[in-house]
């Protein structure tokens, strides 16, 4: 128990100490928010869909959580060779607890990152539909963070060097984001795209946040919760399994 706590605490301490990194990682979501939010806003409005900034904000929040979580998991490659992870692997602590502490820490940090994006989006004009639903939105954000930290952990445990990183970014993470309905509504799309979007786990996370913050969801928020809940268990189990097989 203590080991899980200390590994979680470690991630938080690292996060708050690297202020430059926090600011740096906010650049991309802000750019998306401003360029797309204001750029496509008028067209979106003309099409009768309402406020695009409100629509896109949950997508951008999910994007920053996705990138932070996956990257965090993949950091294992580095951490096991040159970082503190090796110290934990020779300690009398089970692999499962190490993985759990590390993952919970990473997911907390990713969620915080999402919260910062949410706060910033209000400066640009994002309006809450119902503030009482904020805890539900936070729950969805944390679930997204857990799913993708789990995925990143599984990938990071399997790889031996950073060579495959670009491949994963371009063929897994980017598609997960762009095909998720983060940037466009899922209704009225070509059939193939709808199918792809409904396989993409991120779609449900974004839909859940959108349902909570904006009051409009494509699937159903209970469906979103169910899918993400099951995926969280599956991916954490997968991450734990691959992590237990890590040999240095």
């Amino acid at each position, binding site marked *: 128990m203590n080991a899980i706590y200390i590994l979680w605490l470690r991630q938080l301490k690292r996060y708050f100490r690297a202020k430059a990194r926090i600011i740096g990682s906010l650049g991309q979501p802000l750019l998306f928010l401003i360029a797309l939010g204001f750029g496509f806003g008028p067209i979106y409005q003309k099409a009768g869909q309402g406020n695009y900034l409100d629509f896109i904000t949950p997508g951008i929040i999910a994007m920053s959580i996705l990138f932070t979580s996956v990257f965090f998991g993949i950091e294992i490659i580095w951490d096991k060779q040159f*970082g503190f992870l090796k110290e*934990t692997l020779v*300690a009398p602590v089970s692999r499962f607890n190490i993985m759990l502490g590390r993952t919970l820490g990473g997911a907390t940090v990713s969620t915080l990152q999402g919260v910062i994006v949410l706060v910033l989006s209000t400066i640009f004009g994002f309006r809450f539909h119902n503030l009482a639903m904020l805890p539900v939105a936070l729950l969805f954000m944390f679930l997204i963070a857990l799913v993708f930290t789990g995925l990143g952990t599984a990938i990071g445990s399997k790889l031996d060097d950073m060579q495959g990183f670009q491949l994963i970014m371009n063929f897994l993470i980017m598609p997960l984001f762009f095909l998720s309905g983060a940037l466009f509504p899922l209704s009225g799309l070509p059939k193939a795209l709808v199918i792809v979007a409904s396989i993409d786990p991120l779609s449900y996370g974004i839909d859940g946040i959108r349902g909570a913050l904006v009051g409009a969801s494509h699937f159903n928020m209970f469906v979103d919760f169910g899918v993400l809940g099951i995926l969280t268990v599956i991916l954490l189990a997968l991450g734990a399994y691959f992590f237990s097989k890590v*040999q240095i």
Partner: protein
Amino acid sequence: MDNNIIQVKNLTKKFKEFIAVNNVSFEVKKNEIFAFLGPNGAGKTTTIKMLTTLLDPTSGEIFLNGFDALKEKNEARKSFGIVFQDPSLDDELTAFENMQFHAVLYNVKTNSLRQKIIELLDFVELQDRKDALVKTFSGGMKRRLEIARGLLHHPKILFLDEPTLGLDPQTRNKIWDYIKNLNKTEGITVFFTTHYMEEAENIAQRVAIIDHGKIVAKETPEQLKKLTKSTSLEKAFLALTGKKIRDEEVTGQDIMRNHRRMWRHR
């Protein structure tokens, strides 16, 4: 048997077709300083990884402090401290925090943990830097901190994988002073690898030489010199392992190590 704190029997590790460690057996006595030597790629690091539970052997047995390192992993882990070749400190934490986290991971129960940590930091002369972030430390300071950390849970055995690699003579001497001191006053068994033969000759009571995954000699440095009619351990080492340069294939690990050198100045 009871006098042997490390006992290795028929240890073998295969990576696909390549046999990295081939049916190796040796033992280290309590309170001994033991050097494990060999050319690049001979199987040193693979062996140390298996001894420290980081890597599962293909076959064979390992006993540390009487515990089966394959079955009673956590008991075996509590019995040793380790200083890795690559640092395993958290750069974004302070020296003190690194020690504190270690204490939690090893479940060290003392009323005066703070006192104990400060004593150990004092021992490696890092007391005044205890609240500095580790990323501001030089390579030698990191190595010293790792030694202090490795001692926090009162291990019976200290593993050191090339502890003096890349350090200046002053720091190297200092590190060996600490280690000899520990061995004498606390009775800690020391198991180390190095490429500096004069270090092994001066410090180790017994050495084992591994080559092509097999142990080719297990003697005191004196006996080895006598056996090979050499004047130094380095000459004895060359007599036993030959003069051919070992070209190791580059692994993902080496590539990352190079990147690390490029990005971080030590």
